[in-house]
Structure formats: C-alpha cells, structure tokens
C-alpha cells in the first residue's frame, strides 16, 4: 500500500522531544501521517508511545520540535485554542472511561456535536444514525454500565467520529476487551474512520491490533526504530 500520492501530510511531527524530570520520554521523533492513513504506534511499556500520542494531539506541549495539523502548527496555539482543535478536528477513543456514566449512549454521542454548537435535537438525530450504523440500534437509551465492553467502545467510536474529525487518536482501544471483541472493535474503528476520510493513529502494544492498520511505527526509548507499511487486516475481504 502506498500513501506517496497524497498532497501533503495531514499530521506532521518534527524533532519531538519531551522530558519528565530526568526521564526523556521522546528523544527526537519525526512522523508524518497522510490523509486517510491508519498508523499503529507500537512499543513496550515506557517506550514513549503514549507521550507521542499526547504531543500529536496537543494534550502535551513538547520541550522541542513541532506538530502541525494540515500545515497549521499546534505550538503556536494556546491551551484554549489547542482544546478547540481537539474538539473540532480530532476524535479520541480511549481504553475505557471516556463515556459519561450518567448519560445514555445516544446522549454520550450527541454531546460532541452539542459542544460545537449543534442543537440538541439535531445532535440527537445524528447520534441515532451513527449508533444505528455501528450496529447499536435499540441501545440508544442504555447507559455505559449497561453495555458490554465492545458495545461501549463502539459508542466511543461513534462519539469520536460524529463531528467529522481530520484525525482519530485511539489509545489502547481494545485494552479492556477480549481478543474476539477487540478485533470486532478494531474492524469497526478502521472501517468507519476510512469511510469518514479521517486519519487514524492507534497506540497499542498488541500486534493483533496493529495488524488492522496500514502502517506500523515502532517506538523504543523515545525514538522511532521501525516504520513499515503493510496491507491491513480486513482490507482483502
């Protein structure tokens, strides 16, 4: 699979350095992510992969280096503006806990467009369509605690994609699931992200999860040590 033909990277990191006290989490990382590309960032615990995701997402500010989204540098933005970027142009899927326990599934999904100013009625209609498209029709009124792990992650995928983000970040999205459910969630995540035209950055230590992405980046001791493209699982079907 090739991504060379794209006009420019959607997400671009250059020389990222991030230290926590005496520990260097990132020691000069360069990474480009093309539009529609799915990238798995792999590495053992403590390798710096989550720090990389947090820098790319504008959650952490790197000590050195730059991150640009569609050519616009995140380093020029203050916290409020970076928060706005995360709300408008990014989507997030975490391992667990991002869904609000008090809200039923449909309101958890509708909350994202409501935060961008969409009316509650419109947001709820849109959320209903997203849940139905992810096989969750009939479960709109259930709260996260009343959903299975796989169903809850599909709600999280709907919430991440409903605002039409440019990049979706997933941090160990299947970490709390069994293997079969994890694969189902990865299938939904990669397919839906591709159909929405968004790029996908998945942080994982699981090669089975990484196999669903078209590119695999290996991070060790805060550096990229391998970067390979491959045919993602599921695309051959």
């Amino acid at each position: 699979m090739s991504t060379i033909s794209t006009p420019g990277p959607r997400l671009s990191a250059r020389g990222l350095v991030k230290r926590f006290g005496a520990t260097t989490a990132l020691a000069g990382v360069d990474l480009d992510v093309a539009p529609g590309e799915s990238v798995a960032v792999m590495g053992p615990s403590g390798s710096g992969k989550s720090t990389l995701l947090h820098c790319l997402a504008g959650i952490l500010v790197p000590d050195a280096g730059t991150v640009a989204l569609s050519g616009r540098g995140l380093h020029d933005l203050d916290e409020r503006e970076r928060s706005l970027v995360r709300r408008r142009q990014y989507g997030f899927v975490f391992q667990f806990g991002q869904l609000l326990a008090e809200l039923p599934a449909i309101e958890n999904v509708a909350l994202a467009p409501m935060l961008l100013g969409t009316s509650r009625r419109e947001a709820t209609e849109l959320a209903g369509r997203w849940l139905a498209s992810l096989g969750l029709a009939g479960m709109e009124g259930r709260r996260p605690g009343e959903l299975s792990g796989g169903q809850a992650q599909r709600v999280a995928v709907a919430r991440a994609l409903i605002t039409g983000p440019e990049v979706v970040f997933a941090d160990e999205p299947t970490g709390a699931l069994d293997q079969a459910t994890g694969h189902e969630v990865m299938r939904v995540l990669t397919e839906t992200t591709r159909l929405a035209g968004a790029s996908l950055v998945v942080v994982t230590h699981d090669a089975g999860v990484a196999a669903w992405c078209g590119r695999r980046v290996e991070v060790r001791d805060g550096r990229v040590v391998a970067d390979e493209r491959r045919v993602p699982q599921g695309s051959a079907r």
Partner: protein
Amino acid sequence: MSAVLALAPRLRRAGGRDGRLTTALAVASFAVMTALTLSVVGGLLGFAGRAADPADAYQREYGDSYVVFAWTAVVLLVVPLLTLGGSAARLGVARRDARLATLRLLGVTPREVVALTVVETAWQGLVGAVVGAAGYAALLPVWTRVPFQGSTFSAGELWVGWPVLAAACAVVPVLAVVSGVVSLRRVVVSPLGVARRQTPPGMRAVRAVLALVAMGLFMVVTLVLGQLGAFAIAFAIGSLALGFAALNLIGPWALGLVGRLRVRRARTPAQLLAARRLVDDPRGTWRVVGGLGLAGFVAGALAVVPLLASGSAGDGASAAEVAEMRTFTGDLMRGALLTLAITFLVAAASAGITQAATVLDRRREYALQVLAGTPVALLDSVRRREVLVPMLLVAVGSAATAVVMMSPVFGVAGVTDPSGLLLLVTCLTAGCLLVLGATETSRPLLRSVLAETQVRPD
C-alpha cells in the same frame, strides 16, 4: 477476616494524595460537627443551669422559656449537623465503592467488606471527634461574648463536662460507622452494579406521602397544643423534628423529579449534564444542598420571630415590664439569628466538602473529557449548575414548607409582616451566597486535579 482487616491501613495509605485529602476533609467535617454540637449542648446546659439556679428575678421569671427555646434550637440544628456527619462518612464513596466492589469480586465476603468500612470510618470519626472537642474548647471564649438574659455566660456555664466530651468521642465514631455502612449496602448487594454504574432505580412517591403525613401531624399537634397540657412543648418539638425528617424524605425524591423535568428541557451540554447528574444521584445532590434546605426551613420558621418581638408588651405595661420584654425579644431574635447562622455555616461546610469530594472522585472522568476537548469552563458550569438550581429550589421550597407548617400557630402573618419577610429573604439570600461561595472552593481544586492527573502513564 483478620487478613482482610489487616489490609485496612494499607488500603488507606494506597489512596495517595487524594486519599489523604479525602480523609482530611472527612476528619474536618466530623470535627466541625462535634465542635458545633458541643457548643449547642453547652448553650442548652447554660440556660438549664440558670433556670435551675436563677441569679435574678428575670431569670426566675423567664428561665424555663429560655430552656424551651434552647431545646428548639437543638432540634433545629441536630439534623443539619447529622447531615454534615453523614456527608463526611460518605466522602470519597465512589473511590471506596470501586475499591470494595473489586475486593468483593475477588471473593471478599460482605461481612469483611463491612468490617473494612467500619475500621476506616470509625477512626476518621474518632480523630474528628477529638479535634472537634478541642475546637469546642477553643470556641468557648467566643460564645461567652454573646449576651443573653442581660448578661454574658461564663465559660463554666457553657462547659459540657468531661463525661459529655467522652460520650462525644464515643458517639461520633458510631454515627460515622452507621452512615458509612448504610452507604455500603449497594456494594454488598451488587458489586457489579457499582463497578459498572447502572441506572439507579427511581425513588418511590411513597416518600412524598410520608412527608405530607409528617407535616400534617405537626400542623394538627400545633392546633391542639393547648389541650396537651404539660406535654405540649414536648409534642411540638417532637413533631418539629418529624417535620425535619419529612424534609429529608421528600428532598431527594423532589430533586429527582425536577431532574427528570430538566433533562427533557435541556438545550446546552451544561444543562444536559447537570440535569442527568441530578437524575443519576438525587440523594448525592441532596447531601450538597440538603443542609441549606434545612436552613431554609429554619429561616421559614424564624420568620415569625419579628412578629413575636413586636407584639410582646401590652399598653399598660410598666417601664420595668417593657425593659424585660425588650430583653426577652432581643434575646429571642439573637438566639434565632445565631441558630440560623450556625445552620447556614453547617450547610456551607456540607456543600463545600461534598463538592470537593466529587471533584476528587471524578478526576479521571474530568481529565478524559478535557483531553477530548471539553472546555474546563463547561465542567465549571456543570459543577455550578449542579448546585445552583437544586439549591434555589430547596431553599425556597423548604422555607415555604416551614411557613405552611407554622401557619396553624401564627397564621400567614409571619411572612406577610414586612419585617418577617425581610428577615426570610435576607437569610435565604445570605445562605445561598454562603453555600455558593463554599462550592466555589472546589474550582481551584478542579484545576489542580486536571493539571496533575495522568490519564494513562506511558
């Protein structure tokens, strides 16, 4: 059992900074509760002492009335103080629930889970009681500056004695344990329910019926008060306590009802989130604003005081009688305002402490929301709405309840009289501002929690 109990100190230490802060808040609440309760009991003993051994004609004439008023103040204050204690015992309940639910899932028996909670809350209650007893001693010089019956109390008159102090140190941990164990029921019954947060069952309307019965009973008792003879005051005070209990029954039920209405009408994310939280845990919201509700009830009941004060001395009264009446009504007003001030302070402490605990309990949820781009201002707005709307509802509603309940005795004159109405509105406004101010202390805590929370350390 002993192996599990041996875990208690380790589990406590494992809480880290949050655990220490939660413990400090719980101990502080128990301390405030103990100090104020002992102060109120001291006041009661002071008046009882003067009535038993009057120093002058005025104390001989009016001493017994002061004892009745002091008892009324005790009844009015005991529920807010117990509510504060209850809030303290439930502090950090989400974290403890999750931890104990995990232990249950690992095979720890319900009895062992209860034992762990008993150990944890009992020592918090004990430390709080000891600190509170010291606080009471420190407050004595303040109370000795407040004049009653024409002279100030001496510290000796307001001293409750060592046996009462020892009793407080025994009773507070017991109350803490009872409250903590009651809040544990859902962990013991259904650990999965707690671990996975399911929709809570709605509260039954039978609460409203019981509350109405209690209120009706109070009104009937006050109507036939004259025929009860020597038992009249005991009946009136008892049914007032019943009215208070009724308010505690109806409060969470009414808040849940309002929450459901507000969910339907919510248009913005802040309105929706605040309303959903109200529906999710009306008892929790009641713990934040309930103290103010009870204070509102007290304020409503006290709205009649200016009326009583103005119509006391007859036309043909002598100068000495007029002076006596002036002292009596002045004391009545002072005592009423003092009771109200303590109630509002307790309500504000309850609200502030509960909100701080909520921020700590929800730290991971807040951090993930901000990470995904939710503005911190929205979290602030939700936090404020969670308190503001129920607070206004509860304060006004409970004041109105008190006015209705007092109507058999005083009619509606208590609030149609401008000075009574002014007192009521001023008290409620001051109380609401105090509670809002107390809840705003969790604003910097939210920011500090967000700055420090690592969602998933690499």
